[in-house]
């Protein structure tokens, strides 16, 4: 089985600082594989272990995305395709999905495309669905259990207070939630071996076909989230603190 796993190199949001004007300091900011993608990679590797085959890690990002690629390779990726797009020219979500789909088409003969439910930095959760549309493949989102057999994929999905079992013919695109699996921690040996696995680089411009989506979508500004909370701590015995809290909540008219 040829399995593609879509991985994003994301800014480590926990480390990201704002400059005095409230804008994020992206230059030199630490990047890593988007947290949720660990579940995507784990699922791809699990499917490979169950069915045999290869796991091809596909990512779109700047030169610093190599770190995310290596993390995915250490978890069990066989090889990688890196669509090189440096940040100022980075495409929007629809164009990103288009480029990822183009790369999957180039790889050819792909049975399953796995991704996570969204990226840890933007968390819009739309690229997986868009990739499926560009590939004209079925898309099962938010899978918490994935099984492939007899040319089909069968997934459990939690939606609207019910659990649904969905089925689609392969090739298909599946996005997994964190309930799907427990990501493995690679050993030091696996981390070192990951550096030797092949990475194919494709300039983003080379994927720019006649049907490239030009949507005129742009990020105008990014500023720090305003947070003006009172940050008042109540002390004393549990009973005293609880009483003070209840009084404060009454003052706020929320009790």
């Amino acid at each position, binding site marked *: 089985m040829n399995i593609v796993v879509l991985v994003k190199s994301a*800014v480590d949001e926990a480390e*990201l600082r704002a400059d005095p004007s409230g804008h994020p300091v992206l230059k030199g900011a630490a990047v890593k594989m988007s947290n949720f993608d660990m579940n995507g990679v784990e699922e791809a590797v699990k499917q490979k272990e169950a069915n045999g085959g290869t796991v091809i890690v596909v990512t779109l990002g700047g030169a610093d995305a190599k770190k995310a690629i290596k993390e995915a390779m250490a978890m069990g990726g066989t090889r990688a395709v890196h669509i090189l797009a440096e940040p100022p020219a980075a495409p929007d979500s*629809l164009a990103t999905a288009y480029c990822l789909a183009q790369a999957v088409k180039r790889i050819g003969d792909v049975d399953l495309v796995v991704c996570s439910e969204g990226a840890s930095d933007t968390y819009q959760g739309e690229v997986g669905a868009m990739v499926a549309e560009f590939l004209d493949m079925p898309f099962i*989102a938010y899978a918490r259990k994935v099984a492939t057999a007899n040319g089909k994929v069968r997934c459990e999905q939690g939606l609207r207070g019910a659990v649904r*079992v969905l089925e689609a013919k392969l090739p298909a695109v599946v996005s997994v939630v964190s*309930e799907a699996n427990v990501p493995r921690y690679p050993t030091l040996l696996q981390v070192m071996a990951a550096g030797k696995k092949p990475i194919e680089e494709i300039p983003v411009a080379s994927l720019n076909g006649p049907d490239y989506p030009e*949507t005129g979508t742009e990020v105008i500004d990014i500023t720090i989230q305003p947070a003006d909370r009172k940050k008042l701590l109540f002390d004393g015995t549990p009973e005293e603190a609880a009483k003070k809290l209840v009084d404060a909540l009454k003052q706020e008219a929320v009790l």
Partner: protein
Amino acid sequence: MTGAVLSYSESAELAGEVAAAGAEVATMLGTDAVALELDEMSAGLRTSGSVVVLKGDRALEAIADSAASGILEFAKTKGFGALLIGETRFGTMVAAKVAARLKVGSLGKGKKLRVDGGRLVLERDAYGGKFVATVASKLPCVAVVQAGAYRATDAPPRAVETVTVAVGEPKVAIAETRHGQERDAGIKSAAKIVSAGRGFAKKEDLALAQDLASALGAAIGCSRPLSSDLGWMGEEAHIGLTGAYVHPQLYVAIGISGQLQHVAGIKDSKIIVAINKDRQAPIFQVADYGIVGDLYEIVPALTKAVKQG
């Protein structure tokens, strides 16, 4: 004239809010607002615009693929200025599919919409909710609207029309549906929420949070580890970036450290209360009121104090 602003949500709770967002954007654009309903009109839908009920050759709302196809057929035939969809898992899928099939801009999910220089502008979370991104797209485009940003009108729709669409076979089939396994925690629209985190040592101890919730008349939710890693609560109860965004009057976080991903989902709460044994826990930085201490002592005392009024 710009095409109509279409709104849609499969959630009866959200449909009126998204219709209100649609009406506001339509006014800014000088065009009509049309709330879309699939398969049948839900009795409670209120909008200052009109309603179009889309009926397909199969149940449209059964699966995101069919819902997207139905909306797409209508949007392609009639044209549109913007399509606003309520933020749920289902809605997110439908929005992405429609944007990809039409190759129009997708603004993502956020709360505040405005029109600027003929473009639709949306403010949405960035970098785990630590920052706010302002995103703009030329028209037509698609945006996902989160709960709590707009208030549904009380007015019944001006007109209701039924339109038939042909959608064809969806690529995904439903093999089985198991109801009742997941309980809708009701947190998305709750006025008060008690939320539990890793500070609880075992599942049975959640009864303490439940007692407080009962005393407050609050819904109960949790941070990601409890639903995802430990499975103590259902997926629907999970609050945060990958779960529900909530906007209660009162949010009580118990034994929750306050990771960015959790805070992203609670920042629209009016009052945030934190109970945690670690004074350095980041949750205290985003809370209005806090008590540093052992939740096993604080929570019962708080429940008692609430009951005593």
